């Protein structure tokens, strides 16, 4: 009896799925990383934050960057737009960046240079380049895609009193790091620590989340650092005035506001 056999198979399949999901309480490595990227780069529908950055060289000399970052998510597919305005130091004041990020192709990036009143498009291949001289790359600022790396689950571990999943990620194409270990909070999904290793498997950079706070319903890393272990240079970042779902509109992320900062949001 063919219909009966089909129904039996269907029931068996359903049973198998249910038992699989109850047995595997821990999500897959891809799922952990995906949820972490969502929590870290996509929280809320939009976001406004004032960022203070300290660039500290091995001699202890400090350079500072103060900026406002605006972000909006467009649709569910992962498309995003970023707007970054520099308040200081004096010589870069008024410089702004705009990024249109796509899930399936290279981002579009623009910079506005106020001294020349010039909007310039930046080549898209610089995502591993330093963001304004800091130890963070452009990709660290606006995020990467889960498919850019292969991920494997290593273990569960407590880190500073928080439960974490430890995941190892290896880039699919050759870039400046060969391997990355991430400690991802298994409840809040934020990365609390990341260690990058170079091609010779030597430690390269370390990311640390110093402080995590709840803003509305969103957990946010409000103090973080990135240290280059080979050069001794490090960058410390503090988020202030964090706001989610503040009501940004997509037209802020256009050439008009690149040239003239939206004063309502950039103060």
């Amino acid at each position: 009896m063919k219909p009966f056999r089909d129904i039996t198979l269907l029931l068996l399949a359903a049973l198998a799925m249910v038992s699989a999901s109850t047995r595997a309480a821990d999500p897959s490595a891809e799922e952990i990383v995906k949820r972490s990227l969502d929590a870290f780069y996509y929280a809320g529908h939009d976001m406004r934050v004032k960022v203070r950055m300290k660039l500290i060289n091995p001699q202890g000399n400090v350079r500072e960057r103060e900026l406002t970052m605006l972000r909006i998510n467009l649709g569910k597919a992962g498309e995003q737009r970023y707007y970054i305005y520099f308040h200081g130091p004096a010589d870069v004041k008024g410089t702004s960046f705009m990024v249109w990020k796509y899930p399936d192709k290279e981002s579009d990036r623009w910079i506005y240079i106020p001294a020349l009143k010039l909007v310039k498009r930046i080549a898209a291949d610089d995502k591993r380049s330093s963001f304004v001289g800091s130890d963070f790359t452009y990709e660290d600022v606006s995020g990467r895609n889960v498919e850019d790396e292969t991920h494997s689950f290593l273990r569960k571990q407590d880190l500073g009193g928080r439960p974490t999943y430890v995941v190892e990620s290896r880039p699919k194409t050759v870039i400046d790091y060969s391997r990355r270990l991430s400690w991802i909070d298994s409840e809040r999904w934020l990365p609390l620590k990341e260690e990058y290793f170079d091609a010779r498997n030597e430690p390269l950079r370390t990311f640390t989340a110093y402080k995590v706070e709840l803003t509305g319903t969103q957990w946010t890393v409000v103090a973080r650092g990135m240290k280059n272990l080979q050069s001794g240079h490090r960058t410390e970042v503090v988020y202030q005035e964090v706001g989610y779902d503040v009501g940004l509109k997509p037209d802020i992320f256009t050439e008009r506001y690149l040239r003239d900062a939206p004063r309502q949001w950039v103060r």
Partner: protein
Amino acid sequence: MTAEAGRSVRITASLLAGFLALASPVATTGQGVSLGGFAQSHVAERTSRADCPSGTACDYPAAELRGQIKAEGGNVSGEAALLARLDLLRDTAVDDTRLVARELFGDLTSEKASARLGRQVITWGVGDLLFINDTFPKDWIAFFTGQPMQYLKLGSDALKLNAFPGPANLELVIAGFRPDTTPTSRRFIVADPLPAGLPRRTREHGNDSGDVEISGRVSAYLASWELAGYVSRTHYRSPAWSMTGGEMVGTYPRLNTIGASLTGPIGKGVVSLEAGYYDSRKDRDGREPSIENSQFRGLVGYSRQLWQDATLGGQFYGEWMRDYAAYRETLPAGLPLKDRLRKVATVRFTQFFAHQTVTFNLFAFLGLSEKDRYMIPSLRYAFSDNLWAEIGANLFGGKRNGMFGSMQDNSNVYLTVRYAF
């Protein structure tokens, strides 16, 4: 005081008065005024052992101390804002002290439109140091003596109106005429095709309706591409000389331009395309040798990252003369014959070191038609967030008939030190 200096003082004074009148209501209702600025020293030393005519700043074509004050403020809602950027400089190369209003404007902004009135710098087009649809005034003396790049652009005294209907950006600029600052014998050794000994003067435009300049731009995104169209009713900004009543009179002939640009990603880099038509209104048939012939201009550029913190860009640029036969027939004896198509290539290489505190940059113009060149290497070090120094050079070479080659007695090395606050 020369007539030109008197005029600029008058303009500065009237802009300042208008600014202060606008500033008081904004200041009382606003978020306060933020102040900034810098102190800067800039020196350029001629590298060639040239014999300068008397009266030319020979060893140091540029030597100045400059202080800039920038004040800006706006009301809380962001609808009204003001900006003033004033330079006071002691120019020892030509023994002059002057106050310059670099920018001085007021802004009114709404969701769908904005207006800016006053002296303002406007930059259009997608070329890198090659200008087609950007017909706004420029300071070539600052450029050729290695001043920081912002000094290449001069402000226009203008009303700029922007409208933002949907995805497009419409810009209309109504401006008074302002000439380019072009090399003269005060600082440069320039080939002078005009007869010596005759008195000379330039005749600038007043602000009569016939002399007002109107420029328009419309731009929009098309997926990842940016498309823009431009028109300008303007004037040539360097003088065309002719003999009138026993003296040489330089005028700025009328010019209309129309063009378009496109920029977007191709492969791992960015491609830029721009084209324009220069309609020389006072020389429609191309038979007036003192006035530029009508031209088509075009450029294609590509830039991409080579490795981390290093970018390479290149451009090809061409100017195609429309009435070449008429130009050849009317060219005065003794002047070099230009090609119908003047071709220039440019290369830019930029590399950052040490967390972007050190910047090496090389820009080169290569005259493919005129067999000349102009190279600008520079190295900048930022000692701190406030203090940087840059050494560089402006190196002209090749055939002396070419635009860049004719400048080769003016090659120089420069040093700029700036403290910003």
